């Protein structure tokens, strides 16, 4: 499938109405990536973390294949996020990640870019994409703050988890037929740090965005009247899905917790056999054997828990965030429709106004001011006609907007469902495989511990 860009570009590219204002309002605070830091990290000289991921095109193909089954043959853009480094300035300390892009797309001047980005930049990109395409489903970013219980060893694990999520975020955008064509995306991937800062400052100022958000709130309070059946169905699904995935997330985290506690006890169990072997003669070897077995099983259990934490937990958590994204997207679609409906009502009211007999008040005023009643009425009618024409134009635009929003969402909805199935299926499969492997290793270890039985 070739990557053709849809001819329809959102008419509201530069004049967006963000539906979810909370993100906007709080975005003033800059310390998203400060959460990570504690004073005694030995990060001063940077570059303490995982080595860069392989950058040869061949290995990148494999990596991307793993992430996306569809369209992997025709990938023309490869992105990796790696190499977290800490930066210390006078005011703050934060982490940047290397974003490496290799592409053959024509809209890019070069075929390779290497830039450093911090979490804030990713947030900015997400916001811009959502503004521009309010009813497309943008893959979620990892959370700003550390969620209690999710992260234990504050430093390496958290950064690695975040890095992986950021990597996935960019690749999902790159795979999206519409989002990947965004100018903001291109700038994000290619601009040097100062260029990006300059670029960010463009666009609608803060105050104008305030006005828009007020209108958006007003619209959302009004609510939508004639939502098409299919979107109601999607909304119900999203509600239920959100519950289920939330439960799965909790259950999985609970399993990790229980498994870790089991491991702790197991670590104390083996030594009791070793201790006992010290007091025995005939039984000593056998007891030591049992102790050894248990130790091996401890290692396997540790690996299994690690796998669960690295593979299943992050994916489930991602989809919990996805569910919230979906809810927001549906709300925004509703708001677009609500605005359209509101304007329609306004039009109807105006028409009624115009066609009605002159109101007494108007007539009275007119006569007070010495105007000819006929003239007054004629002037009024002309004015209203003008307003009605204006309204009709606006309504046409809004109608287009509603249609575009609905189509975008419908298209993306199918896409999202396919991704979701793929992601969750592969995560659960991987978990099941690891568990089979775990039990096979444990049973093998135990079997070898049995003393040779004299065969008849």
């Amino acid at each position, binding site marked *: 499938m070739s990557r053709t860009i849809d001819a329809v570009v959102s008419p509201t590219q530069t004049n967006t109405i963000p539906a979810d204002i909370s993100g906007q309002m709080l975005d003033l605070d800059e310390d998203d990536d400060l959460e990570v830091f504690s004073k005694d990290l030995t990060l001063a000289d940077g570059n303490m973390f995982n080595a860069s991921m392989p950058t040869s095109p061949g290995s990148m193909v494999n990596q991307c294949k793993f992430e996306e089954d569809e369209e992997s043959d025709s990938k023309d853009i490869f992105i990796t996020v790696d190499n977290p480094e800490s930066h210390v300035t006078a005011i703050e300390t934060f982490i940047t990640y290397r974003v490496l892009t290799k592409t053959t797309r024509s809209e890019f001047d070069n075929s390779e870019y290497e830039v450093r980005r911090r979490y804030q930049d990713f947030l900015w990109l997400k916001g811009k994409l959502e503004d521009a395409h309010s009813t497309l489903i943008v893959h979620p970013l990892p959370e700003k703050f550390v969620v209690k219980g999710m992260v234990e060893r504050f430093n390496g694990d958290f950064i690695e988890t975040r890095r992986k999520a950021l990597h996935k975020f960019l690749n999902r955008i790159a795979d999206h037929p519409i989002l990947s064509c965004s100018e903001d995306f291109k700038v994000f991937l290619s601009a040097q740090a100062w260029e990006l800062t300059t670029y960010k400052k463009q666009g609608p100022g803060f105050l104008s965005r305030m006005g828009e958000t007020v209108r958006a709130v007003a619209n959302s309070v009004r609510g939508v009247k004639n939502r098409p059946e299919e979107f109601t169905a999607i909304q119900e*699904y999203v509600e*239920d*899905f959100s519950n*289920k995935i939330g*439960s*799965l997330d909790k*259950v999985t985290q*609970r*399993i990790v917790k*229980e*498994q870790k*506690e*089991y491991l*702790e*006890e*197991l670590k*104390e*169990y083996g030594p*009791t*056999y070793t*201790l*006992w072997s010290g*007091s025995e003669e*005939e*039984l000593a070897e*056998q*007891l030591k054997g*049992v102790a050894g*077995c248990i130790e091996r099983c401890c290692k396997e259990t540790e690996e299994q828990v690690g796998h669960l934490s690295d593979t299943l937990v992050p994916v489930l958590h991602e989809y919990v965030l996805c569910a919230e994204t979906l809810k927001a997207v549906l709300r925004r679609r509703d708001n677009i429709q609500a605005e359209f409906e509101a304007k329609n009502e306004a039009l109807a009211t105006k028409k009624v106004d115009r066609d009605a007999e002159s109101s007494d008040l108007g007539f009275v005023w007119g006569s007070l001011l010495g105007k000819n009643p006929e003239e007054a009425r004629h002037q009024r009618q002309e004015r209203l006609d003008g307003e009605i024409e204006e309204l009709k134009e606006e309504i046409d635009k809004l109608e287009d907007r509603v249609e575009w929003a609905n189509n975008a969402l419908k298209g993306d909805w199918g896409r999202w469902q396919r991704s979701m*199935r793929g992601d*969750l*299926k592969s995560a*659960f*499969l991987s978990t*099941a*495989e690891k*568990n*089979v492997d*775990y*039990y*096979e290793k*444990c*049973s093998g270890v*135990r*079997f070898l*511990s*049995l*003393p040779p*039985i*004299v*065969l*008849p």
Partner: protein
Amino acid sequence: MLSVSCLSALLLHTLERRMADAGNKESAPIGGDEFTNTELENNKNNTMVEEGSTLLRRMEISVAEAEKRTGKNTVNMQEIFTVYLIETRPIDAITEGHNPAPDSLWRRYSEFEILRNYLLVTYPFIVVPPLPEKRAEFVWHKLSADNMDPDFVERRRVGLENFLLRVASHSVLSNDKILYHFLTEEHRWKEVVYETGFQAKADSRIKALSATFRVKNPDKRFTEMKHYSDELQSLTSQLLRVRARVADRLYGVYKVHGNYGRVFSEWSALEKEMGDGLQSAGHHMDAYAASVDDMLEEEEHYADQLKEYLFYAEALRAVCRKHELTQYELETASSDLISKKQQREELATGMVRTFSFKGMTNKLFGQETPEQREAKLSLLEEQIVQGEETVTEKTVECEEYVKGAWVDMQRFKEQKDRDLREALIGYAVMQISMCKKGIQVWTNAKECFHKM
């Protein structure tokens, strides 16, 4: 790689051969057909038939059932207790091809305790097999500490049978008449056993065991054995404690997976394409969560085998302590005799070797008359004669005790090594079986996820 059932069969075969090698031509028949394979195995594991055993050769013994009864206790209050059915059959009749109905009687746990206390007192040089625990200890959270819990009662039934089989196959204990009465006479038995007067001895035994005294020359082997029994006790109890905690945690892990079952099932109703895969995966998660109950119940059997040796350690210690006591009594008697001889010497020669109040008062208030001295001397002579008899008796007692106890401790050691070896093998087999179940469940789940 051998399958689990193959391994179990091999195990059984090895045990049978070992018993044959021990010189006893007959295998130890256990009980009725109602026993499962595992129980048969387990009983054979636990009860190696000794060479030259007596009662068990003549009689088939089993503790077949347990029932609840109500009755009035010693303070005339209503209570519920459990009774166990002991069944016996003469072996001759069986080997001759008849199949007579077993004789049977009901006994409660407290009666077993009385029997054991009697044996402890009557055969202090024997490491007497222990009873199953009075109250459930080392429990992990699922098992209530409730003595009425059916699983607990069942395990106790097995433990009581094990006790009887061990006693009835012991070369010394099996000949005891009281034991025989216990197995055959339901109602008069208690009177008979109390008539032996063992109760008084039991009380003084307990006092003696906990008394502190210094022995000058204990048999070094017994000192070592006592030390070992202390270690065995603390090591096995530590192991049992940790094992219970591990079991508790493992239970938690398995049970939480049951939530997957519920959520998958609910989720499958939402999805069109993934629905079937999710639904069946959910069933497997439910099965996984449910499987832990049986697994841990089976592991309780392993714990019971360890517990038996935890309690055996106490019996072993008691045997060592009894030696110390007899040795101490001998030493006391000896030193008493020596001091009496010294006194005689002093009286005879008039020389005071050691300080005594008598000597002082004599000096202060004058010496005794010759008649008084004669009286004293003859008393002393009597005491010395008695003392020498006592010392001779005690010496013999001590020597015989050491001989008999040492033999039984050796027997015990060999039995322990055998039993624990088998227990550890059985434990490994159990663990392997658990892993196999895990492989099966997750392989099935994998198939279901593939279908998603």
